[in-house]
């Protein structure tokens, strides 16, 4: 199971963490960690340009989830800050106000929600639980590429929503493009040391009521079985009727068909559309499209929406996220430390801890001593600050032969590892980085010399290159 992480600083949480995150000090909702074991974390970031409707859509989605009547589904709000944010959204919706454009905040505060018995992916007959961590990122943060890297949660997000109003984009005078939006995301991921490959990008067209959609897409939009969820119940025949046999799998063919239609629409009608599609697919990112209308129509001159707003396909981005959101395999790292009589420099200046801190943000880390098959402590436990009590031979073979097939190793040593050459012509050649604090070992292809004061990120970067 992937490690449970703080929703604010994204640092891994100890299984017994409660009250506050030990890394950033932010208050955690009650029983957050325990709840996440049963409802795995699902990270979501809404990205897009100013006034393209991101926050409106997010507001509408949460309001619909609050009113959702589908099987045993219910939405749980985690923590007082999220509760207060939803209260503000609810009032704004009732008063028919469009939420203010998201204020640019260096580190936006996530909404923490738990979906109970959401439509199942692996088993249509069974609901699934998710802990939704939803970040709405200010549009202004995308104006310059450098600001975006402040959103560390991006690294956790397997599926990112690029939310675009095609009419607004067509009239944009600021030079903003879909490709630019994607590149802002890509730039942030590179800074965070995360690979794009295998992730999912969903282009969410907002304000569908202002688009000239292909007829089939428009029909799909209007046929949303959940469109009346936030309308007040009436005795009339109108109003929400719980769909009898809604399943994600059953809805998927239609979603895929509309995605294809919108991809073609993007190629023909969106400035820079073909380049965007080619760019994303060239990065081996899964690309899907959907179209939404969070308000059913424009606000009037007094900024009031229709009182009983129909909302169309607002849940589709979430459905895509659930469907495509295969749990990202937690990367498995090994940190192997020199425990020989000459290995002292490895432990100077807290180097193992610094390296461990960098690795643990990217996956689970198990620490070993060279010459000792068994790990030094449990996976996820901090590395020792000193060498083993008895000097050990620099041997790594028994460690490698027990390591997992996907494990990547970083070896810190002051001298040659006696048996590393045994693995030169094995897959370990491209799964192990040798960091030498002494004479450089040129016999190993992925060897990084380290000198006192060097930035540990260099060796981490070398290792992360192997995980691509």
């Amino acid at each position, binding site marked *: 199971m992937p490690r449970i992480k703080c929703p604010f600083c994204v640092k891994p949480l100890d299984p017994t963490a409660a009250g506050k995150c030990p890394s950033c000090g932010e208050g955690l909702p009650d029983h957050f960690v325990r709840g996440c074991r049963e409802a795995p974390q699902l990270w979501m970031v809404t990205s897009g340009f100013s006034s393209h409707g991101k926050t409106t859509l997010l507001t509408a989605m949460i309001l619909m989830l609050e009113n959702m009547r589908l099987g045993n589904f219910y939405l749980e709000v985690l923590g007082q800050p999220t509760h207060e944010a939803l209260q503000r959204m609810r009032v704004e919706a009732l008063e028919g106000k469009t939420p203010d454009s998201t204020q640019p905040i260096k580190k936006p505060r996530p909404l923490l929600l738990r979906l109970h018995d959401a439509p199942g992916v692996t088993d249509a007959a069974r609901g699934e639980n998710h802990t939704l961590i939803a970040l709405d990122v200010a549009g202004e943060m995308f104006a310059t590429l450098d600001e975006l890297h402040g959103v560390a949660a991006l690294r956790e997000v397997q599926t990112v929503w690029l939310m675009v109003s095609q009419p607004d984009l067509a009239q944009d005078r600021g030079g903003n493009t879909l490709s630019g939006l994607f590149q802002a995301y890509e730039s942030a991921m590179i800074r965070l040391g995360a690979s794009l490959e295998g992730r999912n990008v969903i282009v969410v067209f907002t304000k569908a009521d202002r688009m000239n959609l292909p007829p089939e897409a428009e029909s799909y939009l209007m046929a949303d079985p959940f469109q009346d969820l936030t309308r007040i119940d009436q005795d009339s025949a109108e109003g929400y009727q719980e769909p009898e046999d809604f399943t994600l799998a059953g809805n998927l063919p239609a979603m895929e068909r509309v995605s294809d239609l919108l991809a073609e629409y993007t190629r023909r009608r969106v400035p820079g559309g073909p380049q965007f599609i080619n760019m994303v697919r060239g990065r081996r990112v899964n690309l899907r499209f959907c179209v939404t209308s969070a308000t059913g129509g424009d606000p009037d001159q007094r900024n009031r929406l229709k009182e009983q707003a129909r909302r169309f396909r607002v849940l589709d981005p979430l459905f895509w996220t659930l469907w495509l959101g295969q749990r990202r395999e937690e990367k498995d790292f090994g940190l192997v430390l020199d425990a*020989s*009589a000459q290995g002292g420099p490895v432990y100077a200046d807290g180097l193992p801890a610094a390296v461990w801190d960098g690795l643990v943000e990217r996956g689970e880390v198990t620490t070993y001593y060279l*010459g*000792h*098959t*068994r790990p030094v402590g449990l996976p996820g436990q901090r590395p020792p600050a000193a060498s*083993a009590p*008895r*000097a*050990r*031979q620099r*041997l790594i*073979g*028994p*460690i490698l*032969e027990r390591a997992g097939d996907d494990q990547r190793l970083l070896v810190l040593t002051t001298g040659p590892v*006696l*048996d590393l*050459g*045994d693995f*030169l*012509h*094995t897959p370990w050649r491209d799964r192990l980085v040798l960091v030498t604090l002494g004479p450089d070992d040129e016999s190993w292809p992925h060897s990084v010399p380290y000198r006192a004061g060097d930035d540990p990120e260099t060796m981490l970067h070398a290792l992360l290159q192997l995980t691509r």
Partner: protein
Amino acid sequence: MPSPPATVDRAGFPMTWIEPLGAYLHWLPVTKVQFEYFLCDRPSARFDQDWYDALLRLNRRISPRQIDGSNYWHALLTGITPPEAQAFAQWCGDDGHGHYRLPTAEEWFKAYSALRTEPPLDLAAIEALELSPRARLIVQKLDAAVASVRGEGGGRTMADQMLMRHGVMEWVECKEGRSPFGAYGRPNKQLEGRLINLEAGQMSIPNDLEQRLVAYGFRLLRRGE
């Protein structure tokens, strides 16, 4: 003729059934790679870095891939004393699969006498075992390396294949005589040149059992499961 049964020891290295002994015997003298599993699994003050460094100064280590006819003895563990070999035997048996020990002098020579007239075994029987990649490579490389060494008296035998000749001097337990341990074998002359009438059962009995001897290694016998 069907191949004799074979199995693996705790380190994943092959042992073959020797019918005259009613027991399994290591296919090869214990190798450095094999012994390193013991070193890494059971770190102790006795077998620490200095200990292994001393052995490697006597007989350097080579990677399995480097093994050939001109250097193969470097893959074998030598310089070890009988009590240290017994510690490895104890570790092998600790996982509950049989009792391991040094063969007695009688057992070793009995096995040798039987195997020196047997034709080489088809390696497929050994390779069919669940060997680690390194163990498999060592078996293959040593077999090829020893095949390049001139056979005695008309060709290669199973005793040659198992490196009972052209290998190392192998520690054995002595039930009689003044020394508890002796050694059988005929090492490759480049490891140590000596004249030994192995066919007549000549055994070597070093004066100082504590001394690290460059040509002295061992293999183990296993009884039971």
